[in-house]
């Protein structure tokens, strides 16, 4: 059934706008990064005592990238929001 552009979707949109492009960017960054760096080698020079498999290494790496790209997208979204009315008219004292 079609979903009208109601309030629920309007509230969901910023989440989509922040999470989705950052997901793609993180995927690309992850692909390029791990093409040059083997997660097992990375573990050996960082947390050598912790048993990290390649799968877990890729997963952690991806979410690290996603956290960074999503943070950037979120700040962009925040700065693009219109100022609340009156915010720029407060008198200086």
């Amino acid at each position, binding site marked *: *059934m079609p979903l009208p552009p109601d309030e629920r979707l309007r509230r969901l*949109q910023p989440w*989509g706008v922040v999470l989705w492009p950052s997901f793609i960017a993180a995927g690309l960054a992850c692909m390029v990064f791990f*093409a040059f760096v083997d997660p097992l080698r990375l573990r050996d020079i960082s947390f050598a005592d912790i048993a990290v498999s*390649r799968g877990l290494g890729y997963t952690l790496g991806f979410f690290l990238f996603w956290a960074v790209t999503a943070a950037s997208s979120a700040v962009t979204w925040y700065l693009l929001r219109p100022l609340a009315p009156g915010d720029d008219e407060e008198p200086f004292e």
Partner: protein
Amino acid sequence: MSATQRPTACAPPSLRTVTTLTLLLGFHLLPWLRWDGRQALLLDLSARRFDVFGLTLWPQDIGLLLGLLAALGAGLALFTHLCGRLWCGHGCPQTLWSTAFGWIEQATRRRLRWPPVERAVRWLLWGALSAWTAVTFVGLFVPVTGLVERTATLQWTAWEGFWVLFYSVATWGNAGVLRRQVCSTLCPFARAQPWLTDGHTPRVLYLAPRGEPRGPRPPGLGSVARRGRGLLDATTAQDYVFRAAHPALAGPLPRFAADRLGDCTDCAACVRACALHLDVRNGPHADCVACGDCVAACDRAQQAAGFETGLLRYASPQRAVGERRRLLRPRTLVLLGLFGGLLLGGWWML
């Protein structure tokens, strides 16, 4: 009217139904294809080795892989420039899974009258489809036979389990909750349409000179062609379209004698068939993904009224006003150059 609203259970499946089923089936078979005794498409992350239909890529081939992705993107842009948004309406995973989720919803709504039971069954089926999709997708990154064996005994490794769950939730969210909103508000490719398409690119087109002025009429009157009214000139037709689209600006439409009406009976079958309830008669719409559901609905309604089909059609606006077909336009050359250049680069790297 009743003929257009009746569910078309007995009608042969539409082209879109067939392509949707074929592509969904193709995706679910993809990890099972074999090539020289190996999984044909396996992006094996643990082994750091990608198998792509006989081509083996190692980590140092990342440039080739990125080039391949860019070539696919350029190819899609070229295809869209030449053929319109057929990918959006017929091939994009977002559309395919939204359609499948919609089919499940229609089926449960039709068969189960009690809402709590309907919702429970629908969620169960949606969950099963999401999970199966996620297992298949993860099966492109770990050898699928082992993954499915471990699925049967629920012995996934932690990160397999995590990604299956992640993609199940993503599938449900995109296809079950957001649906076409993804195309309207989240998809960058949809936003790029004005740069990719021009007047020669086909899109869903309403033949206003034949359809206008629209309006209901008693049955039995023939089409404009049969009763000799013929086509309006483009300016007059566009004026009627504007008046119908903007009644607040243009005031109510004048009343027309039944024999002066065009072939559009204003039955709104096209608007009802559209997942976003767009009215394509009022001009091109940025949210239209050219799925063709309105075209099929209009053809059925026109046939029921005894008129010829094709009042809504998938065509190039320039061709519709009688211009000669031009295959090579400036944008075609740019996109062709980009696509060809990337392919040649990849060929050279191989």
